[in-house]
């Protein structure tokens, strides 16, 4: 659903780096260079960011549509 807060293997905080990573990649930076720039060195942490997909972004439009229909209760 959301970016994991910690790396599953080592426990380092990586949750705050996913958004920065996607921003750098969308600007045309190579993913490996972007990870180096963010200081993510170990491959356990690197795979957390590289392999992440934000499923919430696919679900949020439904909640927004419900809100637009005027239903106050949300989902």
């Amino acid at each position, binding site marked *: *659903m*959301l*970016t994991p*807060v*910690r*790396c599953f293997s*080592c*426990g*380092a*905080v990586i*949750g*705050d780096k*996913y*958004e920065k990573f996607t921003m750098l990649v969308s600007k045309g930076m190579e993913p490996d260079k972007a990870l180096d720039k963010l200081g993510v060195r*170990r491959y356990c942490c690197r795979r957390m960011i590289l392999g992440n997909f934000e499923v*919430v*972004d696919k*679900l*949020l439009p439904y*909640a*927004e549509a419900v*809100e637009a229909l005027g239903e*106050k*209760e*949300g*989902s």
Partner: protein
Amino acid sequence: MGEEGEELKLAVELLESQKGGLSIRIDKYDLNYANAIRRYIMSEVPTLAIEDVVVVENSSLIYDEIIAHRLGLVPLKTPKKYLEQAGVQLMMVLDAKAEEGTRTVYSGELVSVEDKEVYPISTEIPLLKLAKGQSIKIEAYARLSSGKRHSKFSPVSKATVKPSPLVNVINDSTDKMKEIVEVCPRNVFYVKDGKLAVADEDACTFCMECIKVDPASVEIKEKYNSYILSIESIGQHEARDVLMMGIDLIQRDLGELMEKVMAL
């Protein structure tokens, strides 16, 4: 202990001290003791983390349990005054509403009610996403505990002990020098004036890839009773404090054992 005739004097050298990271070399010391320090750092040094969560209101897409779990993983700055207070409980509050449109709730919005010195180390961890009109209201209770209870309480991510590597170039004009430089994942070697040389001996991880390329030209050994202890702090405490607390806790536990043995 040391080899025969060798002076038994402990020597400590600071190899690396970066923001959050610390690496020291301990000479004339046993692996068992160095590893004990490492394990105490990982599982005994106490830190604060959210342990109980009361969900007052949650109309978001994310389930209560997932939010509670994510809150628990957010590292909290742990002031030293709480270290001796085993049962300390601090209330933190997360109150967010998406009024204008879809938005992300970050860890920065989690605020301590009782003590402003306790705060999330990173303020940019996404906790959940809210669509327009959704809201979240949470009371979270931070408690003091250690890594052996749950790894969220561990003050370090990386904590390693490895022997000090001794990298020797036997034949510095080998025709395979370019391959050796390329095959090494930690860039231990480089070519200087057409000759193979060692750039960073301590970086070696004993993967032996260079030996596979040319067994006759390079030699990798472990230095006797010399170990490199490296830790990387998550942020609850400074890396240096984590190391000192780890050593301190071993002393405390050994002292307790001593008292028990004396009472026999």
